[in-house]
């Protein structure tokens, strides 16, 4: 009944004070980033900080037992071998954060590349890569990680790689899906019609667009990696001869008596681990909402 002639009263001029859809990262985001930066700082500079030696046994002659609760001298208390829990927790960050970072970096690099290639070229490349992803995803991740740690050694780099391999499949699938979404869009067709070669299209047109949802994934992925490393450490399968959060937690909860009488040994590392993982999850989620990415699941 009406044609499309615009009416003046219809102009969508925003009224003063109208609320646009909230697209800010929020203060919670920055708090989390703050915590993460603190953790990174501690991990990097642990050796230079004025904290007690994590390997030193603080036994004073004539004391009742080696393990003491939190006090002014030992903020997080001491563990069963009279080592300072606070110092050990700070040192534990080194392994967790390093493993987490390398794992997700590897996963994104390899997974992302494979995914983009699969999504762009399709055909048999897609089928092979998708099948690879599927095989990797057929194992519950912890099981696969455990199996690989059994076969390979337990150096820092190896463990990071193992977790990185685990990250390849979910990252790859996301990269592939996003690429396929964008590859059909007009600007790619336009680039092609201008004679752009495949490589150029991938790098110039697709990569920037795929990179956005993937970067939202980075923080979340790192959280998962840290949790996985913690699980491995708890089971005794993480980096050997290192102080790890999982390892500390295991020592603090091995016997019910320890857990009952000296809960601080396990709970402080649990707390720090939780806060770090929570911070990564929260920040990652905020980034995801900010860029409005759908369907990220690890």
């Amino acid at each position, binding site marked *: 009944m*009406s*044609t499309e*002639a615009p*009416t*003046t*009263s*219809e102009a969508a001029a925003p009224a003063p004070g*109208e609320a*646009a859809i909230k697209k800010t990262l929020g203060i919670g985001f920055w708090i989390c980033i703050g915590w993460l930066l603190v953790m990174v700082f501690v991990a990097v500079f642990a050796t230079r900080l004025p904290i007690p030696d994590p390997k030193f046994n603080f036994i004073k002659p004539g004391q009742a037992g080696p393990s003491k609760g939190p006090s002014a001298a030992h903020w997080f208390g001491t563990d069963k071998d009279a080592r300072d829990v606070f110092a050990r927790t700070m040192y534990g960050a080194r392994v967790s954060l390093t493993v987490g970072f390398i794992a997700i970096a590897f996963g994104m690099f390899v997974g992302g590349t494979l995914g983009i290639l699969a999504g762009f070229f399709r055909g048999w490349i897609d089928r092979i890569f998708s099948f690879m992803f599927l095989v990797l995803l057929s194992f519950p991740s912890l099981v696969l990680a455990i199996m690989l740690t059994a076969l390979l050694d337990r150096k820092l780099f190896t463990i990071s790689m193992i977790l990185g391999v685990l990250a390849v499949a979910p990252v790859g699938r996301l990269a592939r899906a996003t690429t396929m979404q964008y590859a059909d869009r007009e600007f790619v067709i336009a680039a092609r019609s201008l004679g752009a070669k495949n490589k150029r299209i991938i790098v110039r047109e697709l990569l920037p667009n795929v990179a956005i949802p993937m970067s939202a994934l980075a923080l979340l992925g790192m959280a998962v990696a840290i949790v996985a490393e913690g699980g491995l450490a708890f089971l005794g399968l993480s980096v050997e001869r290192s102080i790890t959060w999982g390892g500390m937690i295991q020592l603090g909860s091995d016997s019910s008596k320890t857990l009952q009488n000296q809960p601080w040994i396990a709970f402080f590392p649990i707390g720090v681990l939780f806060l770090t993982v929570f911070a990564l999850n929260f920040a990652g989620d905020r980034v995801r909402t900010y860029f409005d990415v759908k369907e990220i699941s690890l």
Partner: protein
Amino acid sequence: MSELQTELRQEHQPLLEVTDLRTHFRTERGLVRAVDGVSLTLERGKCLGIVGESGSGKTVLSRSLMGLLPSSNTVTSGSVKFEGKEILGLPSKQMRRLWGREMSMVFQNPMTSLNPLMKIGQQIAEPLNLHLDMSRADARATAERLLRDVRIPEAARRLDQYPHELSGGMRQRAMIAIALACGPTLLFADEPTTALDVTVQAQILQLIGEQRRDRNMSVVLVTHDLGVVAGHTDEIAVMYGGKLVEKAPTSVLFAHMKMPYTMSLMRSIPKLEDPSHTRLATIPGRPPDLVHPPKGCRFAPRCAYARDKCLTEEPPLRQAEDPNHSYACWYPVGSPEFNQREAELNNGAVPVTLEAR
């Protein structure tokens, strides 16, 4: 009217009495004045047609009357009296006693308005069970009878079927059956035929009319199509931009319409007698912004007969020759200004709406 008739009229209470109803929505853009001062009455057993474009507020009106709007961000004022009792603003708990029992609604799209995972029989039996406390067996028997009343063939078999197993027309009939289940006194039909084939449309309207007469039920028929209300209503109310712009008994409206908008609506109905490829007469422009409605008459920006006064002053509702006929227009059909402009148009002048000047 004789004195006796006047007396009877005063004693007798209308089924639905609406006074200055306003329904506004709080949104990010501001206050949307979807319904902005509508008054009307409806007698028992009569059918009122509410006509308007999309965005005119007609659907919001019908839902406000029934009280079905979500309470958050909705501001209503005015009065809606059902059988003499005020129902505007009543909490859901109390309204639930009326919904499905005294007043019910038939919705526009029967595919999405029926629960896809529930059998038809169950959906009909639900209000029977709830309001009339019927046993399963009784409810089932009643449901079957209702399906037959609405002329669905093989009623017994249909009871156990799912909505997607029925055709569009049958689904709409089923919805009518659901609405009629507990014998309501007031039925709202919100664009009941829009989603249906033309051939089926007539059947559905006829069905609604039949049921109305058989049950002495009042019907509010909401539609954008004047053709739909032509044969099936006792009274027609025309809405535009949230306001009631003309109201009259059906025959009076068609014979003596006053508002140029109503006239445009009339003219835009394609007629069978027109030669093929006749251009559809359309009304240029778009419905008004309900957050910042225009100052004067809301239709003025699009009206080919508008003059300066129409833009600045809002015309009040006035009575026409027939006391039951009211309209809101400064220069209605038949007025000298109107006739002058009409002559200009007939002489080939291009209709220029005010906004374009």
